[in-house]
């Protein structure tokens, strides 16, 4: 922008883009602005800052591209279809050590369990904090406790989970050894602790959405004779759907990427091992692994130490993260564009509200 010559005095105030322009010449004199009204007139220190900014921005992108491309090249060269369909097998020979079918399966199960626990609790907490929040002391305490959870190290959460779920009263969530000691390791226990990781993200995103809903929407619903509970259920929650989805996807990203909780709370096995033959419950009470765990196991720091497999699995992990990222970008775009659309859907919603109850 700002490459055209402008008649002084008629020049539109273009805000920040033109603070460095020359002082206005006498009226009637036409001035040509330089083609790039850039940083030429700035003191050198300001110019240095300007270029440093660009260097930082571009540097960040170069690092991102380097990592993604490196993983792409390394991952693709080791990736083969059979890795996706075979289970890991303990073998010294890499060709016989199997693929990562079970870890992929485990990633999805664990994410599903974690989100199934975190989403309802997170949404309920956000609604309470934003719509009720009484007594205010409790609200403030809950708020700061959730903020603390966002900063709590996942490895500490994991060892707390192990302590909690190896109590014999909670033995039904995992398995017991022959001696009667509860292991505390299963998809359910790991998922419950994963939910703690996702909770602050879901609460934050939902609250952000709720805070942006203008009060007149609530008042209109009340004027139609709806209770506050109904208003929340039929008006507020539907209009923050996009925010909830965004928080949930961010939470999924956190769950998929975390390794410490998996290693400590999901057992050291690479294969999915159901606790019993009961279809769903047995699987959830059993142990297994996830992709992040598989990458760690096959890295030089882990026991497997097969870097081809680690690269291949990390590549798949990165693709999942990219997909989630794409989802967040799409959702954020919808939220941003949502101005008019959201109002429209709100009108539709009052209409539906009137006829459905």
């Amino acid at each position, binding site marked *: 922008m700002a490459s055209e010559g402008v008649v002084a005095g008629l020049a539109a105030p273009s805000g*920040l*883009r033109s*603070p*460095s322009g020359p002082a206005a010449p006498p009226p009637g004199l036409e001035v040509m602005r330089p083609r790039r009204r850039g940083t030429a007139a*700035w003191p050198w220190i300001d110019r240095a800052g*300007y270029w*440093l*900014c*660009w*260097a930082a*921005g571009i*540097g*960040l992108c170069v*690092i*991102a591209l380097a990592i993604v491309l490196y993983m792409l090249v390394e991952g693709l060269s080791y990736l083969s279809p059979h890795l996706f369909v075979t289970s890991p097998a303990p073998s010294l020979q890499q060709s016989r050590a199997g693929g990562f079918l079970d870890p992929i399966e485990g990633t999805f199960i664990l994410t599903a369990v974690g989100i199934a626990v975190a989403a309802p*609790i997170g949404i309920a*907490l956000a609604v*309470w904090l*934003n*719509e*009720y*929040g*009484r007594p205010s002391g*409790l609200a403030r305490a*809950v708020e700061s*406790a*959730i903020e*603390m959870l966002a*900063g709590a*190290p996942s*490895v*500490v959460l*994991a060892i*707390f989970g192990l*302590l*909690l779920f190896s109590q014999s009263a909670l033995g039904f969530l995992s398995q017991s050894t022959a001696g009667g000691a509860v292991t505390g390791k299963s998809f359910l226990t790991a998922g419950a602790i994963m939910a703690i990781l996702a909770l602050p993200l879901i609460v934050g995103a939902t609250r952000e959405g709720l805070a942006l809903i203008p*009060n007149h929407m*609530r008042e209109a619903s*009340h004027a139609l*004779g*709806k*209770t*506050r*509970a*109904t208003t929340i259920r039929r008006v507020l929650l539907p209009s923050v759907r996009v925010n909830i989805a965004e928080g949930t996807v961010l939470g999924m990203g956190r769950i998929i*990427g975390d*390794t410490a909780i998996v290693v*400590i709370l999901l057992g*050291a096995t690479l294969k999915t091992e159901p606790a019993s033959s009961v279809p769903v419950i047995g699987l959830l009470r059993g142990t297994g692994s996830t992709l*992040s765990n598989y*990458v760690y196991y096959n890295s*030089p*720091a882990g026991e497997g130490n097969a*870097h081809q497999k*680690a690269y291949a699995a990390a590549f798949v992990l990165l693709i999942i*993260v990219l997909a989630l*990222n794409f989802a*967040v*970008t799409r959702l954020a775009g919808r939220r941003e564009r949502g101005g008019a659309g959201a109002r429209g859907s709100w009108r539709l919603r009052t209409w539906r509200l009137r006829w459905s*109850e």
Partner: protein
Amino acid sequence: MPAGAAHRSPSARFGGGLRARFGGAGADRRTEQALRALAALTLVLIAAMVVTVFIKAWPSFKANGLAWFGSEGDVDTQLRAMNEGQALPGHSILYIRTWPLIWGTIVTTVPAVIIALIGSTLAAICLTEFASAPVRRTLEPIVRLLAGVPSVVYGLVAVLALAPFINDHLISEARRKSVAYVVQLEGDNLMLAIVILAIMITPIMVALIAGALASVPPAWKEGSAALGVNRWRTIVRVSLRTARPAIAAATVLATARALGEAIMLSMVAGSRGFDANPLDGLTFLFEPVRPLAATIFQESEGLTIGPMSHTLYAMGAVLLVSAVLLSFAGWAAKQPLKRYGIRA
């Protein structure tokens, strides 16, 4: 914002009978009570978590006293003795001096956060103030992607691609020999840990700082521009100053991430409970360290062993306390911004 909380819904008073199906006011009250109970339960659970970790950690603190935070002997040997169940001669089984581990945490976190703070502030300015709309549209997803990359992937790239390079090209034989009598220099070391940690936390900070910069009221910047101040000075004097509390909050969150990072650091930091010495000059950067969180993660198999578990929970308690202090600092940092009605 207690939106809509000030007035009770009219239906609670007048329209109860019309919605007998939903129970009217009674159901409304029950909803609030249920939600409040859930909130209270969450609070109790979180408090219980902190208390349990401390109860479990107490024997270790009690046996060592304040010397728990001190430095004496080799912390790796002490941990190994605990794992094997044989007390070191002349000491109890719970004997541990964790200063090298705490020092390892400090010496990785602080430089990484400083690097990330500078880099992310500059990148956020670039993103919000200088980049044109199409550039911004491409940069934003990239930042978000970087923030979402699992730490184990960063660790893998670092340990497989960067560590051998550092080992082969950056550490000279003379340097290796100069400290050979205390520690062996390898490719996975403090420098790699700091660099990767900084790369890991920068995108998180960029996202938060860019959000704060974007929410600076345009009128403030226009006011500065109208006074003839150039763009860069406007950004530094107005935008950055307004966003200062948000920058502090972002720093706090990033520090919490760095403190708690276990996987990546256990892969790249060298995993040696060594008291890296800044007085060694450049060699300092090539010395191995072992941060607290990474230690908990690596020794987690020992959680079934009594003394070992007390020690690990004690380290966890120290990390939890740091997280609480950090989140308090973050809360304090956000307060000034609220005066101007800006959400951080």
